[in-house]
């Protein structure tokens, strides 16, 4: 067969690489900022610089901007070469690149301003969600089109991972972002409470799996053997670990919700599937590390290989740690503490970051037809980066362990030793400081890389279109005798995609559908009522300020939590929570039973100046809540949306929504004015937030204020 000449598109790879570097530095600088703001709370200078809002920007930036752009760079480079074909459509490549950057910019333009749907790693509001879906599809179409036009009969293992990534992220993203829009910048999740939590963590866990893991494993399967010039260790290991990984991963989401109000059977599935994930994950680690067999002498000299080795090791460590954290005993200690960020950052800084750095150092000189400006600087980057990771993670392990033990320590007479939550926080501040230093070291390493890359680029000349040639695929193909059975599906990309989709759908369907459809999973609590109009607005302020970044709303069934917070949280209490706000980290105390615990004035003063009520507190000040006027233009629309989603507001309540809101606001403002001895306007945002906080977790006591009774009033008489 005659050879065809074609050109690999390096330009798109270069663009994504540059975007990776730029967004990587920015995203991690935001991380450093918020890390230091836990030590110096005064750094929460303005509303858009507060921890609660910037945390989402950091996580989204690191995941979707830094790692996202990097995996696209790596995929566009490796895919073309593994398939011996140029990307099918330059236009789609361009749309993908610029569309993705636009999404990142829109994240920067919304998250710091409190435009957030509150669901972790999916905070972006609905118009941006639609944009992400469209761009993702453009990427998928381009990839699949290229696969169909390939000149290589079989798909290499890296491509299997790319396909699984495309399919699964699409499914996860769409389901978790099903929301009812109220305005261009506001929507409510169609799921509530327990169901929303399950869907969110099915998404959240698998965003880690299918955005931070599978595509990066694909990159590993291309760049590690390339850089080491060694064959991949085991083909059969690739097969079994690929299928086992994608099938098992999807089930493990509930391990984020152990000891919560999620039904026990779902929690147990989360635990056992996490344990079963250890070896499929390690299959990837083994295949990566053992590919370096016989090349260890090169590791000593090559910065690229060093980065890869530490990355793969970090992958192995965090994929062992994760399942161990899914065991109830360990989870009871680690959850809600700094142990979890430590675990996460071993994965992101170690596995993702170091894979990316290794790839960049290998890729840029290749595309610029030169050698790396300074191998020595790259090695320096490696050592600074490694030190940075250690400085980041080790103090946080200590912090998590320390705080957890403090939370759980009782005096012999049954009282908590550290009854004041704040004591367990101030204890950690030196560790927070060390962590911030670790993060800074890591970014210093990245800046060294920036310099090195710029110097490299300047010394070379960019090969935008790289010539290659290969024969087109013959129509007929007869599989050789004795071929491995799996070769069949490697020749059939559509079947591969279909089977991968089946594998990833099973777990999600078995866990999510029953939780939504079977009523016994969320036992009804008679006394739970919808939020009042004012409380709905207050709840949206809670979401806007990102309070859930530091405060959970989930009292777990432990003696230590029942003693500290009150009755443990029940599934039935969250049925009107669109979206759920259980949180995943307690930098501050749990708030689910905060309703009625303090007087209004305590909250008011605490919000204006946290240290006035809690000396030593590291919470940001929320002074602007007392000067901003509450926007009630959408109140009725919000209540209507909630009604559409099944919250039993009566029509008459919605029709008089604003009046109901004002009457409750006036009552609270009146109380505040007399308690504080200063005039408090009922129109302050603060009043709405306080109304919400005072409502939290009190319904089970069965005493409802007249404002709460009003929400369903028309309905009850109608029913009777």
């Amino acid at each position, binding site marked *: 067969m005659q050879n065809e000449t074609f050109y690999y598109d390096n330009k798109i790879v270069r663009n994504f690489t540059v975007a990776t570097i730029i967004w990587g530095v920015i995203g991690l600088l935001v991380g450093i900022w918020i890390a230091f703001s836990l030590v110096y709370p005064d750094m929460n200078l303005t509303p858009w610089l507060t921890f609660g809002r910037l945390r989402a920007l950091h996580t989204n930036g690191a995941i979707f901007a830094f790692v996202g752009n990097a995996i696209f760079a790596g995929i566009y480079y490796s895919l073309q070469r593994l398939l011996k074909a140029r990307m099918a459509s330059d236009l789609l490549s361009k749309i993908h690149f610029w569309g993705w950057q636009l999404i990142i910019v829109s994240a920067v333009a919304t998250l710091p301003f409190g435009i957030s749907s509150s669901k972790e790693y999916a905070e972006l509001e609905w118009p941006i969600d639609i944009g992400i879906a469209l761009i993702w599809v453009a990427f998928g179409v381009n990839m699949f089109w290229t696969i169909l036009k390939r000149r290589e009969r*079989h798909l290499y293992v890296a491509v299997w991972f790319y396909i699984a990534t495309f399919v699964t992220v699409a499914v996860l993203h769409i389901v978790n972002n099903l929301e009812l829009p109220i305005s261009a910048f506001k929507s409510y999740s169609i799921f509530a409470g327990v169901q929303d939590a399950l869907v969110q963590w099915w998404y959240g866990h698998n965003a880690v799996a299918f955005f931070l893991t599978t595509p990066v494993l694909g990159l590993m399967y291309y760049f590690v053997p390339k850089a080491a010039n060694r064959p991949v260790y085991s083909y059969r*290991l690739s097969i079994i670990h690929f299928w086992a990984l994608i099938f098992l991963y999807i089930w493990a989401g509930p391990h984020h919700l152990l000891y919560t109000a999620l039904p026990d059977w779902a929690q147990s599935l989360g635990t056992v*599937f996490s344990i*079963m994930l*250890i070896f499929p994950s390690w299959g990837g680690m083994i295949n990566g590390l053992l590919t370096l067999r016989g090349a260890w002498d090169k590791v000593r000299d090559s910065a690229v290989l060093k980065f890869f080795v530490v990355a793969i090791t970090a992958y192995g460590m965090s994929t062992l740690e994760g399942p161990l954290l899914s065991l109830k005993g360990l989870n009871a200690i680690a959850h809600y503490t700094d142990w979890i960020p430590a675990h996460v950052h071993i994965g992101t800084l170690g596995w993702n970051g170091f894979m990316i750095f290794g790839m960049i150092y290998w890729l840029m000189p290749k595309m610029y037809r030169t050698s790396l400006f300074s191998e020595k600087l790259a090695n320096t980057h490696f050592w600074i980066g490694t030190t940075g990771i250690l400085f980041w993670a080790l103090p946080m392990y200590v912090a998590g*362990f320390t705080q957890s033990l403090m939370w759980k320590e009782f005096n012999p007479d049954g009282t908590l030793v550290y*009854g004041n939550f704040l004591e367990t926080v101030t204890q950690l501040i030196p560790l927070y400081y060390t962590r911030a230093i670790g993060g800074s070291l890591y970014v210093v390493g990245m800046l060294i890389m920036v310099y090195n890359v710029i110097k490299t680029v300047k010394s070379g000349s960019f090969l935008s279109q790289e010539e290659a040639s290969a024969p087109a695929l013959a129509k007929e193909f007869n599989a050789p005798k004795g071929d491995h059975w799996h070769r069949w599906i490697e020749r059939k990309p559509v079947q591969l995609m279909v089977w991968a989709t089946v594998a990833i759908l099973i777990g999600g369907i078995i866990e999510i559908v029953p939780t939504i459809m079977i009523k016994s999973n969320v036992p009804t609590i008679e006394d739970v009522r919808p939020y009042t109009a004012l409380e709905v607005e207050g709840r949206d302020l809670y979401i806007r300020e990102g309070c859930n970044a530091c405060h959970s709303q989930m009292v*777990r069934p432990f003696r230590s939590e029942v003693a500290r917070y009150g009755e443990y949280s029940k599934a039935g209490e969250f049925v009107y929570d669109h979206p759920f706000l259980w949180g995943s980290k307690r930098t501050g105390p749990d708030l689910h039973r905060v309703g009625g615990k303090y*007087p209004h004035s*305590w909250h008011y003063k605490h919000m204006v100046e946290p240290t006035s009520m809690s000396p030593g507190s590291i919470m940001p000040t929320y002074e602007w809540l007392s000067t901003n006027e509450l926007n009630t233009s959408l109140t009725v629309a919000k209540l209507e949306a909630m009604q559409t989603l099944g919250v039993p507001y009566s029509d008459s309540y919605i029709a008089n929504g604003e009046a109901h809101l004002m009457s409750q606001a006036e009552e609270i403002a009146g109380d505040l004015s007399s308690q504080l001895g200063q005039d408090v306007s009922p129109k302050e945002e603060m009043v709405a937030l306080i109304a919400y906080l005072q409502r939290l977790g009190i319904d089970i006591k069965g005493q409802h204020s007249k404002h709460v009774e009003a929400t369903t009033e028309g309905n009850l008489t109608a029913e009777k």
Partner: protein
Amino acid sequence: MKKINRILILFVVLLMVGAGSLTTLSPESSQDILANPVNWLMVVTAFFLIVAFVATFEALDAMKKMIKGNQAGAEAETEEAPVEEEEDWASGLLKTLTDAAPLDKEEEVATDHEYDGIRELDNNLPPWWLFGFYISIAFAVIYLLRYHVFQSAPLSAEELKIELAEAKAAEEEYLKTAANLVDESNVVALSEESRLLAGGEIFMKNCAVCHANDGGGGVGPNLTDDYWIHGNDISDVFKTVKYGVPAKGMIPWKDQLSAGEMQEVSSYILTLVGTTPANPKEAQGDLMTAAPAEEMASSMDNTAAVSDSTIAE
């Protein structure tokens, strides 16, 4: 490399045994074991002991060879070759566990796959990996059976009940013997300097945010005047501290302070009566001038005068 592999495998085996044995314990006791830093320390120590053990062995082995080499001189070369071939138990174990084709025989396991210059070997699945995978699947089945079919292990709500019952028993046991057995029916105002000082510290840490450092009041009422909402004798104050007045924002402290501490802080609060705070809050509640102790009677008139003047203002 071989050495590192050996250590790694030993560690993995140890880890598996450890994790396996943990699962056989009840969740509470395994939690206790995990919660105890001493146990963690022991694991780390055990790991280092293993590493040290292996390292010592290797060193001894190397020394043996060196000495042998010196003695045998030129003959050593011919003698040593078969020694190298002979495998000690560890590398034998390693070979069984990894089942990897030796580097020089790699071509035997090579496939004909080649993608952009990347070739694929087809080494056997490492047996340790495969067995680990089987064990994890067995773990999953046993776990689900145990919790959801045989129900021989407590689910979370049940676990809490057990935990609370145990705690209650332990508390009662403690209170039987402890001198700490103070409640609202028998509490007396303390006068020892040291305990009042302790009460003052508790006050600063917990009460001052609402009642001000000097007790002058803020979010909460003024504690220095003679006007009391919930009573002014030690038993009343103790009760207010212990059970709180949730409706008015006073939180119950019974789970955060011990009975002795509540007694200390209640006693301290009573010593504040009659002092002059920087920013006194207006009087709330009823005028109660019955001083709890006789010696305070003399200062009573004085106190009343201050309160009156506050009201007058």
